[in-house]
C-alpha cells in the first residue's frame, strides 16, 4: 500500500498529493510519470510527476478532478492509501544548457512543467516561464514557478489575473521582443500544446510537448497510448511522454483522447447512484 502523506487543495478541483513510494522517489526524474490505482476495482491512471523527495521517499503528483477516477482519488485524505503506485515511467526530459528557453504551462500542466523548469534553470538556462489558466483561481504553482524562472508571465482566459488571453499571446510577444529563444517546453491541455506549436512553428523554435494519451500498462505492452509523430507511430509510455511538438499529429491525439468519453459518463452516473445499479 502506498500512503498519502500530505494533501493540499491548489485550486477548485485541483489537488496535490504527496505519496510515499521510496523506490519510485529514488529514481524519479523530471518529465517522467507514474501510474496509480485507487482501489481493487480501479483503473490504472497515469499522472505526471510534479516533484519528488528522495530523502522522504515521496512523490508529489497534482491532478485535476475531471473524471470518475480522478474524483475518487480526490476524495481521499491524508493517511489514506492507494493500492498501487508504479514508476517512474517514461523517458526523462533531456535537459541541457540551451541558452534562452521558454517554459509554457497551462492549467494542471504547470505541475509536470515545474520540475522540468527547475532542472532547466539549474542547467544554466535563462528561463522565461509563461503559465496560464482559465481564471485566477485555477492558476497553480505560481510561486514555485517564479522561484525557478528569470521571468514569469501569467495569462488568464477571463483576464482575472495577468494578461487577459492565452499563453500563446505572451509566447509570441517574448519570441518577437526578446528573440533568440532556443527551445520551448509546453505542457497543458492538448489544444493548448497544439496552439503553442502553431505559434513557434513560423519562428522555427524547437518545441517539446508532453503527451497524455489514454494508457493502460505504461510499459509498452498494450499500445493504447499510440501517438503519431512525424508519421511514425510511437508509444507515449516508453518512447515519450515528450515529443517534438512540430511533428505530432494533433487531430489524431485529440480524437484518441475521446475514445472512452461515453463510458466515463456511464461510470460517473453509476457511481452517483451507489454504483453498478444498471440504471444507465
Amino acid at each position, binding site marked *: 500500500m502506498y500512503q498519502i502523506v500530505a494533501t493540499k487543495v491548489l485550486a477548485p478541483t485541483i489537488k496535490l498529493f504527496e505519496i510515499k513510494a521510496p523506490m519510485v522517489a529514488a529514481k524519479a526524474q523530471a518529465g517522467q510519470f507514474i501510474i496509480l490505482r485507487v482501489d481493487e476495482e480501479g*483503473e*490504472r491512471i497515469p499522472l505526471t510527476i510534479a516533484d519528488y523527495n528522495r530523502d522522504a521517499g515521496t512523490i508529489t503528483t497534482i491532478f485535476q478532478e475531471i473524471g470518475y477516477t480522478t474524483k475518487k482519488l480526490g476524495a481521499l485524505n491524508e493517511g489514506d492509501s492507494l493500492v498501487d*503506485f508504479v514508476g517512474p515511467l517514461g523517458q526523462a526530459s533531456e535537459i541541457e544548457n540551451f541558452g534562452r528557453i521558454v517554459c509554457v504551462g497551462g492549467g494542471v500542466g504547470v505541475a509536470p512543467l515545474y520540475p522540468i523548469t527547475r532542472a532547466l534553470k539549474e542547467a544554466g538556462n535563462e528561463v522565461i516561464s509563461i503559465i496560464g489558466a482559465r481564471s485566477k483561481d485555477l492558476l497553480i504553482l505560481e510561486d514555485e514557478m517564479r522561484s525557478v524562472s528569470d521571468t514569469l508571465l501569467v495569462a488568464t482566459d477571463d483576464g482575472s489575473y495577468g494578461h487577459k488571453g492565452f499563453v500563446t499571446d505572451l509566447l509570441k510577444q517574448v519570441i518577437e521582443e526578446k528573440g533568440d529563444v532556443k527551445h520551448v517546453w509546453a505542457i497543458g491541455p492538448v489544444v493548448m500544446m497544439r496552439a503553442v506549436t502553431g505559434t513557434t512553428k513560423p519562428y522555427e523554435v524547437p518545441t517539446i510537448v508532453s503527451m497524455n494519451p489514454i494508457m493502460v500498462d505504461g510499459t509498452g*505492452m498494450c499500445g*493504447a497510448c499510440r501517438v503519431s509523430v512525424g508519421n511514425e507511430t510511437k508509444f507515449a509510455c516508453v518512447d515519450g511522454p515528450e515529443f517534438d511538438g512540430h511533428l505530432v499529429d494533433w487531430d489524431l491525439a485529440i*480524437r484518441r483522447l475521446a475514445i472512452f468519453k461515453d463510458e466515463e459518463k456511464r*461510470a460517473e452516473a453509476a457511481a452517483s447512484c451507489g454504483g453498478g445499479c444498471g440504471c444507465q
Partner: protein
Amino acid sequence: MPIIKEKTPMPSQDPQERSRNFNEVALGYTEEMALKEAERCIQCKNEPCRQGCPVEVDIPAFILKMKEKDYDGAIAKIKEKSNLPAICGRVCPQESQCEKYCTLGKKNEPVGIGRLERYAADYELNKGVTPPEVPASTGKKVAVVGGGPASLTAAADLARLGHQVTLFEALHVAGGVLMYGIPQFRLPKEVVQTEIDYIRKLGVDIRTNAVIGKISTVDELLEQGYDAVFIGTGAGLPYFMDIPGENLNGVYSANEFLTRTNLMKGYKFPEYATPIKVGKKVAVVGAGNVAMDGARTALRLGAEESYIVYRRSAEEMPARTEEIHHAEEEGVQFKLLTSPTEIVATDDGWVKGMTCVKYELGEPDASGRRRPIAIEGSEFFMEVDTVVMAIGQGPNPLVPTTTPGMELNKKGTIKADEESGATTKEGVFAGGDIVTGAATVILAMGAGKKAAKAIDEYLKNKA
C-alpha cells in the same frame, strides 16, 4: 479388455450460452470420467509421452496413481516437475506435445493427458493446496525479472533448491500473460492466483509494481547483492501492420483488448472502472491463440459478429485446434486468405470498415508454410466497427535496452544459450518469449526450468 478408441469427451458449457458469459468453457472431468480416461493409458515401457513435455513430467507415473484413485499421489508426482499444473492442464498445447507421442495415439486418439492433469490439479485446489516443504537456505540470492510463466517457473524451482528468490513484476499482479492475456473463460484468474500463492509459499518474495529498467537496472540488482538474475520479461510489445488507419478510434492491439478485459475486468464495467468498448462487428486480424481469444472475447462483450481475418488458409492457422473449434462453435466467422490493406474511418475518426484483399497460396516460404500472394484486383470492403490486431508481439525493450553488456538478436530478443538460458553477461540468464519471441506458456515454463537448473549450477560454482 478392449481399448476405448476415443478420448473421454470434456464436458463444456453450451456454445450458445457460453459465448455470452465469461465463465469457464471446459468444465473439467468428473471422477468417473477421469478414471475412465486414466484406464486408457497402457503404461507402456518406453514412455514416449515424456519426451513431448518441456518440463519433463513423469506422465505414466501420475496416471498410474490416478488409476489407483490416489489423487494426492498423482498431483504430488506432477508437482515434482511442474509448479503450475492447473494452468498447464488448461492451456498447454498437449496435441503437439505429450499427447502427440502417446502410443495409443498411433491408431486411436491419444490419452487425454492434459485433461487428467487438470483433474488432479483441480482436485488439490478444491481440497486446499498442501504447503510445500521449503529446503534449508543456501544463502544465495536470485532476482527474477518478470512475473509470467517463465519467471514463475524459474522462481519456484530456484526456491525449491534453497535459494532466496525475489520476483519483480511490473503490473499490480503477478502472472503475466496468464493474467492479462488468456481470458477468464479459458483460464480462470482465481486458478492462476492460487498457483501463484503456492509459489509464494515456497518462499518467493513477489514484488509487484516494480518495473526493472526503471526502479533498478539489472546491473543495480547485481550490485545490490543478487548473485544471479533471471530475465523473463516476455513478448510485451504489440506489433501493428503498418497500414493506414491503424490509429483510428476502435483499433486495439490484442494486448490492449485482452488486458482491459481480463486483467482490468472491463467486462464488469462500471463495477470495475476500466472501460472496454466493442462495436457490433469486430474483426480480429491474425489466427493464433491470441486471435481466437480476442474473437471469442468480442462476442462475450456483446459483439453481434466476430471475424477472424487471416491471410493464409485454415491449415496454416497457428492456434490450437481446440481453440479454433471452440471459436467456431461459438459463432466466430473465419475470413481466410484475406488481409486488410487499410482501415477506413467515419467522419469523426472511428472505424467504419477495412479494405481487404484476397490471397492465394504459393510455394512454401522460410517458415515452411505456403506463402500467401495477394490476388490482383480482389479488393473488397468489409464493414466492421472494431478492429483487433493480433499479429504477434515483440520483446519488451525495457530490460534489454538498460542492460549494457548483454547481447541481443536482430529482433531485440536476448541472445541466450538454448539449454542453460545463459546470456552473454555473467550471472544473467534469460528465458521465455524475451529469448524466443512470442511462443507458448509451456515453452516459457520449460525455459524457466532449464535456466533454474543452470543458475543453480552457476551459484554452486560461484565463490
